[in-house]
């Protein structure tokens, strides 16, 4: 994979246009939906919502844990831990990624449906922005994967963006919850 850019196939970022466009549409759609859906009244108050919150906290933590698996397996796939990574690294990366993504979906649905895009404080604003960005970035990553002839930096950059966004989301929600409200099930 890493020698992709040095192959005779001319690497071009042009193949990223469509994935980036669709990813941008996802991000903007989520943001607009979250904003339109929010009442024009006062901003999100975390104490105001009940049972689903702990569910979300743990789903997000599961996704964050899998994201760490993603990071390590990605490094292994790119030969950072030795030239010949074991053959199960690829499937591990793909399936841990799928499960991580599927874990985030219920969280995002609850966030968008029940809470909406919020700008009450820095944490909620960062969380809202990262949440919209995450699904857009993930879309770009997924749509870029099957494409050939993309520059060598494409997948590390996109994967890194998705990973960073997810960890940021976890820090602004679950970690915040654990440290502010406590570790609850």
């Amino acid at each position, binding site marked *: 994979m890493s020698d992709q850019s040095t192959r005779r196939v001319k690497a071009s970022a042009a193949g990223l246009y469509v994935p980036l466009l669709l990813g941008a549409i996802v991000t903007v759609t989520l943001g607009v939906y979250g904003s339109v*859906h929010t009442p024009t009244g006062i901003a999100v*108050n975390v104490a*105001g919502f009940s049972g689903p919150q702990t569910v979300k906290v743990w789903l997000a933590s599961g996704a964050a844990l899998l994201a760490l698996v993603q990071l390590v397996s990605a490094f292994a796939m790119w030969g950072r831990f030795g030239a010949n990574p074991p053959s199960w690294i690829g499937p591990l990366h793909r399936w841990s990624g799928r499960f991580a993504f*599927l874990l985030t979906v219920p969280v995002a649905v609850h966030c968008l449906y029940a809470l909406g895009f919020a700008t009450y404080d820095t944490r909620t604003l960062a969380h809202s922005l990262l949440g919209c960005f995450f699904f857009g970035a*993930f879309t770009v990553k997924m749509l870029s994967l099957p494409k050939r002839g993309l520059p060598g930096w494409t997948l590390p950059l996109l994967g890194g963006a998705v990973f960073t966004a997810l960890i940021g989301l976890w820090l602004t929600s679950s970690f915040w919850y654990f440290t502010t409200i406590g570790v609850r099930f």
Partner: protein
Amino acid sequence: MKRNGPIITLLAGLALAAVLITVNLSLTKGGGEPDPAGLGAAVASAAPAASTPPSPTVAASASAAAPDAPAEKVNATWAGTVDGGGATIAIAVTDGVAVAYLCDGKKAEVWLQGTAADGKLALTGKKGATLTGTFGGGKATGTVTANGRKWTFTVKAVAKPSGLYRATATVRNAKVVGGWIVLPDGSQVGVVTVDDVPQPAPAIDPATGAVTVDGAALTAAPVTGVLAEN
């Protein structure tokens, strides 16, 4: 398969989201799961009335069909999050006298009082704040308008220790008014106003109502009937 894998992943996520949203919609519009028995309110019907949007006018006809006893004086408490999650509301009714409190747990709060009878809620507050709505079938639905803002809500009946609490006192010559909503999951939302400056309320002990505000020990009492003038 390998090239389609990522696309399938995306579509699977999309499908999961669609299912969840559908379930959400039907839960919001239907009755949802049965609630702990309300104080004198009819038990929530388990059959979801999926075609009933939570608008006051339509809900009025629905509540007329509900097996409420409108002739009797109403005793009930409803509490929950307003639509969209921006604030929490509690309505406590004692013998038909209703007190409602809406707050965000940070600084925004509205107290209202009025009546609950014949399946209808009609409350007013300071500065022209109003609450209109309907109740029946273990839940209350309506609209609050205050400070140029509008909230809609559909909240379920709750039982003690969940409900609406209030404390009024004078602490070092400062007038203190606190309101707390305790939800069935044990979480609390409250605002304390000290000389008209609102701030997030410290948690009360729902069993005793004990709370410490600005170093002074107060007792928050469940709201029953007309609010004490303060």
